[in-house]
């Protein structure tokens, strides 16, 4: 990082240059902001800004391209991994990632997600699981927990009719096309440092052309959950981690 001085003090952290000046439109305390920032830190530190193409989903992060100062495409709802496949196949030398929410990746996009990984497309899929449809106002997601109240599960998610919270990452880890599969979160500075490492690794792995890297980030949605940001992190730890345990699900064999 270049040396900037503030009355003799050294700069030790500043917003990455790979983020634009546009302030995030996200609600206060939303994990999307944290993940965007960390992702762009990695892009900056690995110097691949000119070699990376990102795919934004339809979801709260639909505007990701307003913030990430890289070439990006905005995909149809659920099709981000298909769009990423199209890009990577014609630009095999470039780094390609998709950034998707749980509704996008695990509901409407289920087929594209599974087949993209099954083909072992050499891309990184970042899966932001906040157990709800944030953008559309807090409806039930495939990852919504048992009994969790949302605008479309007003009496709490009920298995008999709405089905079970879908652990799609566990399914993904089964596919031979998956090279690195991990579940991380953003509830503490250290968790965020771990997430950053996972992203860093994934871009290194992408050079190897040996399969898909898949990072689930258990995240929050204060607005959808109707909690303050701090409450939301607590709720996440108490309710989401037990069902979506953090850690690596599949690590490269060699």
């Amino acid at each position, binding site marked *: 990082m270049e040396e900037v001085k503030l009355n003799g003090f050294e700069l030790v952290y500043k917003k990455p240059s790979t983020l634009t000046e546009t302030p995030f439109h996200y609600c206060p305390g939303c994990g999307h902001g944290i993940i965007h920032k960390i992702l762009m830190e990695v892009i900056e530190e690995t110097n691949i800004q000119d070699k990376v193409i990102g795919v934004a989903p339809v979801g709260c992060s639909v505007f990701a391209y307003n913030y990430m*100062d890289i*070439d990006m*495409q*905005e995909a149809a709802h659920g099709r981000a991994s298909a769009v990423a*496949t199209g890009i990577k196949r014609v630009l095999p030398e470039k780094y390609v990632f998709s950034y998707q929410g749980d509704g996008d990746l695990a509901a409407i996009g289920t087929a594209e997600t599974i087949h993209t990984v099954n083909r072992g497309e050499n891309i990184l899929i970042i899966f932001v699981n906040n157990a709800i449809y944030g953008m559309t106002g807090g409806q039930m997601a495939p990852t919504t927990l048992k009994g969790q109240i949302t605008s479309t599960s007003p009496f709490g998610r009920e298995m008999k009719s709405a089905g079970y919270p879908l652990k799609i990452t566990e399914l993904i880890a089964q596919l031979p096309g998956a090279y690195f599969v991990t579940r991380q979160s953003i509830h503490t500075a250290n968790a965020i440092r771990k997430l950053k490492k996972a992203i860093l690794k994934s871009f290194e792995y992408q050079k190897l052309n040996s399969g898909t890297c898949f990072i689930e980030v258990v995240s929050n949605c204060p607005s959808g959950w109707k909690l303050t940001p701090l409450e939301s992190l607590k709720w996440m730890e108490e309710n989401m981690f037990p069902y979506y345990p953090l850690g690596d699900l599949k690590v490269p064999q060699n």
Partner: protein
Amino acid sequence: MDKNIQEVKLMKGNEALAESAIRAGIQAYFGYPITPQSEILEYFSRELPGRGKIVLQAESELAAINMIYGASGAGARVMTSSSSPGISLMQEGISYIASAQLPCLIVNVNRGGPGLGTIQPSQGDYMQAVKGGGHGDYHLIVLAPASVQEMADFVFDAFRLAEKYRNPAMILADGALGQMMEKVILPEEGSLPKRESKWATTGKTASRERNIITSLFIEPEKMERINFELQDKYKKLQDEVRFEEIETEDAEILLAAFGLAARVCQKAIELAREKGIKAGLIRPITLYPFPYKKIEKLADKASSFIVVEMNSGQMVEDVRLAVNGKCPVEFTGRMGGMIPSPDEVLAKIEEISKKINSLSTNEAGR
């Protein structure tokens, strides 16, 4: 490659189209099997890998059209193909592609519908192709071949137009054109200039702003501006109108038909002229942009139009819009995979010609 020698070949429409696409320099094909056009994917599966090009059998048409979105957005010359039900599945993606203004080729080898229908030839998807099967105000550039030769030639035209106007293009064929073999002279490889798209997402170099491919413009004012851009483009597209005229000069009765139906009409015209009926044919080659002006002119001289289609009468609306009441516009056609015979069309011509004459004699009588 001896492929480039201008030799006459005997080929299936689907394969001629695929080979032509290779010569047009496509970098990737994404598609999903469906009768009567699976030969396209199969041909590419045999021919593309050896040439270091991409052929990918997607998990569905839905995935395929979105792969096209990504690949075209990344600057590549790409295409997909399917038949009616598969094309319906692509409608959301097509609307996105049109809105993001991504050039690409979509081939619809039309079969009989609606629903699963039949796999026999049909023109039942005309409205979907030209009026926008997807949501919002957009148009595809639509070319309608009528022979195996045109199946091959129009691939080049489609890419040229698509890339010139940053707009998706469609070739609307039918099962017969896809399956039949005819003589064909394939276009020369390399005769189509490379695609150039400064706006494509190829990695943001220091020398430029980042490139973004999107169809989202949340402020309606902005979205309206995008729509004005699109509408301007569609106006400009009117310069690209193409059609074929057959014996229209002295024609009293004008047939209007596209694709395979136009070939049937051609035969019917010969038969009619043998019987002394002055019949002619206008064949729209570009279904969008549609030759409204030309047909409007023709309407000044003709005493009646007969539109012939392999559907319930879809293009007939565009012909009526062009004729705008100047003379009657009749329709005859077959549906659900049936092809009208020259005799059926001739019968209609004779019926209308009788009508006209009786009218004129009545007038004479006055």
